[in-house]
């Protein structure tokens, strides 16, 4: 997985790569739902793993995560690959947000190449 343009919500990854979406510690403080190529559901503390699908009509897939806070707190939404590269986006109730949704876009690239961050 590679982060593009120094933008953690703009990713690229090869078909078949296993990615995990997780919100560390957030499940106790918020209701977290996800929509990934691997399915939809409520995110638990262990996260949700999915495989980057084959490119369809467009070589891109999306991962959506919604955090709605039960009380005050922070949602640190992360997508990690098995090599340890992590893309993250954080928001909290500090500014008055009670809920927020972010969507990571993942450009599907040919297999191979290093992961990490592309500036």
């Amino acid at each position, binding site marked *: 997985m590679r982060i593009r343009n120094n*933008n953690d919500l*703009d990713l690229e990854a090869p078909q078949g790569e296993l990615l995990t979406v997780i919100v560390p510690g957030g499940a106790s403080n918020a209701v977290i739902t996800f*929509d990934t190529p691997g399915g939809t559901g*409520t995110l638990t503390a262990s996260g949700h793993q999915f495989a980057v699908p084959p490119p369809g009509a467009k070589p891109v897939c999306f991962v*959506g995560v*919604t955090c709605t806070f039960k009380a005050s707190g922070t949602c640190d939404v992360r997508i990690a690959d098995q090599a340890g590269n992590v893309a993250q986006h954080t928001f909290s109730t500090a500014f*008055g947000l009670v809920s927020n949704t*972010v969507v990571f876009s993942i450009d599907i690239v040919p297999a191979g190449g290093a992961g990490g961050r592309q500036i």
Partner: protein
Amino acid sequence: MTPRRVVAAALAALSWVSVAAAQAPTPSPDPANQLDAGIRQAAGRIQTERATKGQSSGLLLGEVQLLILGLTVPTEDRLLARAEEGRTDKQLGADGSTSLVTKGGIPRVLALAVENGALDQTQSGTTVTLRGSPMGLVHALANRGYLAMYVEGDPALNVLQRFSFGVSFDTSRGLAAGESPTLTARARQLSSITGRLTLLDHREPRRAQYDDRWNNFAAVQQGMTSAAVSFAAAARDDQALAAWLQRANIAIAAAPPERVEAVIRTQLAGLPSIAVSGATLAAVATARARYDELLEARATVLAEVDRGAQLVFDYTNDRPLDGNDTSNVRLVGSIGGMVNLTGNVSATFYNSKPSGVTKPARDISAALQLDLPLGRPESVGRFVLSVSAKFESLLSDVPGPAGFLLSGTKGSIGVGQVKLTIPIKDSAAKVPLSFTVASRSELVKERIVRANVGVTYDLDAVFARFKP
């Protein structure tokens, strides 16, 4: 004492019943104030990125909620939300400064604590009140990186959550002639100290008893998540939106740090007027509908939480400028449902007995209030019928303002009130009608019978709508 002050004293006594509610329900957020919050969140992120990395990627296409609300929230609603938020920010010092002149090291420490979220600050007249809790201090230290390990849900920390405290400073004390109220936080300005222990709190949204409600809510939220993904897919292909984002980020990158939020706000104000594609329009309409459902479903869960039982123990050390310092202990219980029932029992003690007073206890009291919501909010509005009663026993003659005991004031006081609060639909006005009977006041042994009609109006909301 004039009859007017007698009535005021009686009504003030009844205020003990109305404030017996341990926690007021939180107002529901709306899309406009959530857009405002999202703008401040984005501005905070951009400013942090600049400070830590030297640059920022600006607004992101993946921040879909910000874009969805930016495309759909009407301009007039944004102005109203901004006006109300600006007022709150000023009171709470959220811009990084207290709203009063401060001097000395202690006030700066307090200001730092407020800035870092360890304390909450409110102001009423010249009195500044700071409230906090051990748990809040833990949060603040963790957020600043001073705590290496902090586990949410730790049993020890859960015990700390039950405690909270408050300190009030009367900034009008100790002023030189012509001097403006200034927070020095010295002992002379200290007007009260409070401590609270929450014995029972079924109004904690994270309690396991509400898991089923939150699970049902998750099904509604899933609709928003999936609609947001559909919007992101449409937005990615939208050239008009891409061009707007590019222009906005150029303007944001050129803005000095203190202007970033304002520039974001200005750029988002132009978003509804760009010619987005039909696919984007359809996707944003769906996403906005799902978002509105999410807010409503969340409000429904929290309304049920707010009806939970609560039992708190309060201690207040009151230090009036004129008169005797007292300590008050109070047990407050409340429970909601079809009706809301709140009650308290309390006792007040002299910190040092006034001359002529033999008993350390000044008074004991018990109060009960029942609130019955009536009507339908979506049609005639939510009426509230309140019935309350308070019994107070003064255990000895009370000192007057000059410090001399007022002979004959020892005895019992009974106060009863019936009040109907009438909302004016689609306005910020409410009309309370009340009928009060009191056997006497603390200082004057005369029966009081009074009917009151009033109007309460949120003038800030009115003036905000007429802001150019």
